[in-house]
């Protein structure tokens, strides 16, 4: 079921009939999309829907089991934080500096120019003052922002943010959205994984995943009731009227925005 659509020659990344898995049956199938420069794409889906899996394919960590994937730009990522260790002896600046590794010859260590870039990136995420704070002492939202800074330092045209808003308060989330706007204004493309429907509505394009691609397009025309039901299973409830007939979702594992105290 390869998608015959041609790939725009300026797309930073694309997938056609992509499937991926971990040895067993594929956990994600039928994914086709283009990432144009300047695109802001939300990857929407429930827990286990395949968002992280898609990112791992784009990063080259996982080979597709079917279909094709092409990534024509260097790619930086902000991983889901649950796995970083909090007792590791590094400062926020140390972590941001890790983003300079790709540009350093293997025998070189980060120097003055790299420190300047790392500090600047910390400034962009509003953590200039916390540069010398231990990573493990920062709050969940601050840790996320340090990882965003590490990705910014890599200065790539493609940025993959894996559920960056979980653990962030609304102020940090707004700041991150403004930062994303600045990045795409430079012609970079940003993909964000989220299970939050309201978040997804704020992006230019939405890719709905639930073990397969459900839909891809602008949120207004894409996030219809059938699409949402297929994306989340049947757990969709209409909001008490008064809104514009909007829908709310009850995810299978209820998720709070506040995962600060994980």
């Amino acid at each position: 079921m390869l998608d015959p659509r041609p790939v725009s020659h300026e797309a930073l990344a694309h997938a056609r009939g992509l499937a991926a898995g971990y040895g067993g049956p594929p956990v994600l199938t039928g994914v086709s999309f283009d990432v144009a420069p300047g695109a802001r794409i939300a990857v929407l889906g429930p827990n286990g829907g395949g968002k992280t899996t898609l990112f791992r394919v784009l990063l080259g960590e996982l080979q597709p089991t079917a279909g094709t994937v092409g990534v024509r730009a260097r790619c930086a990522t902000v991983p889901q934080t649950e796995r970083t260790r909090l007792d590791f002896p590094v400062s926020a600046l140390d972590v941001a500096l890790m983003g300079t590794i790709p540009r350093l010859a293997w025998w070189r260590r980060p120097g003055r120019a790299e420190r300047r870039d790392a500090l600047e990136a910390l400034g962009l995420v509003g953590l200039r003052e916390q540069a010398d704070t231990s990573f493990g002492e920062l709050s969940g939202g601050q840790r996320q922002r340090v990882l965003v800074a590490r990705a910014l330092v890599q200065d790539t045209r493609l940025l993959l943010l894996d559920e960056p808003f979980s653990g962030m308060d609304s102020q940090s989330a707004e700041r991150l959205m403004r930062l994303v706007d600045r990045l795409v204004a430079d012609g970079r493309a940003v993909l964000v994984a989220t299970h939050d429907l309201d978040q997804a509505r704020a992006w230019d394009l939405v890719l709905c995943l639930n073990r397969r691609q459900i839909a891809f397009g602008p949120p207004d025309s894409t996030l219809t009731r059938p699409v949402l039901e297929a994306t989340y299973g049947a757990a969709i409830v209409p909001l008490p009227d008064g809104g514009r007939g909007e829908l709310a979702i009850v995810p299978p594992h209820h998720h709070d925005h506040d995962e600060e105290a994980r």
Partner: protein
Amino acid sequence: MSAVWHALVHPWSQGIMQRALVESLLLSLSGAALGCWVVFYEASYSAESLPHAMFPGLVVAALTGLPLVLGGALGLLVAAVAVALVGRVPAIGRDTGVAVVVTALFGLGVLLALSPSSPPGVQGLLFGDILAITPGDLALAAGLAAAVTIALRLLHTRLLAVGFDRLSARSVGARPLVADLAVLVLLAVAVLIGVQALGNLLVVAVVVAPPAAARLHCRRMVPLMATAVGLAALAGLGGLYASYYLKTAAGASIAGVMVLTYLASLAVQAVRPAVTHERRTLPA
């Protein structure tokens, strides 16, 4: 005053003790600095296994008159191949495979070492003999310590990225496999340096105890490594004094003081108001 001074200085008037001191400083430099990575790479089990696995090689070297470093290196090579082969047997599995090979090799080494036909001194391999260090041994230890230090400096940022989060390390261009191998190879080198002086059973102390102690007090990698090296050097000094005045075995005294340093650190940390280890939930 002058009596104290005399007591402090007197041990170092002998060449044997001077060489033992330099050797223990070199071991502190390579072992404890590397040990900081071993601790955070959760490779303490490997640190424990490596010297055991190389033991038969050391014994054979001692019996045949080969340099110990060569015997140890060959022993490690044999062990690595054996682990790789046993690990391929599906019914055994990797961890068990390592345990089986290491235990078998260590047992073999002990049998060789304790057989009545073995010359005396082979038993010394278990506990080392830091008072028998020759200037040639020192030169070798200095070379290997320099190699470990340079490698750690060159690899620092990448080791840091992998230790911080090995799953996302690839996305910043640091390869976990390379980092793991680097730590293991350097560990093998550090163990090769240390085994002659501290012996098979005690060499792990210098790799694991000072970093474990320093970790309780440091929040950054470079200060952590410096503190671990400092503690190891002090423990080496203390161990040699103890051995000189209390007539205890030198290698065992050094290892013992290393472990005491760790226990003392634990005690200091227990009485001090808790440092920033517990998690705080600040607004982001």
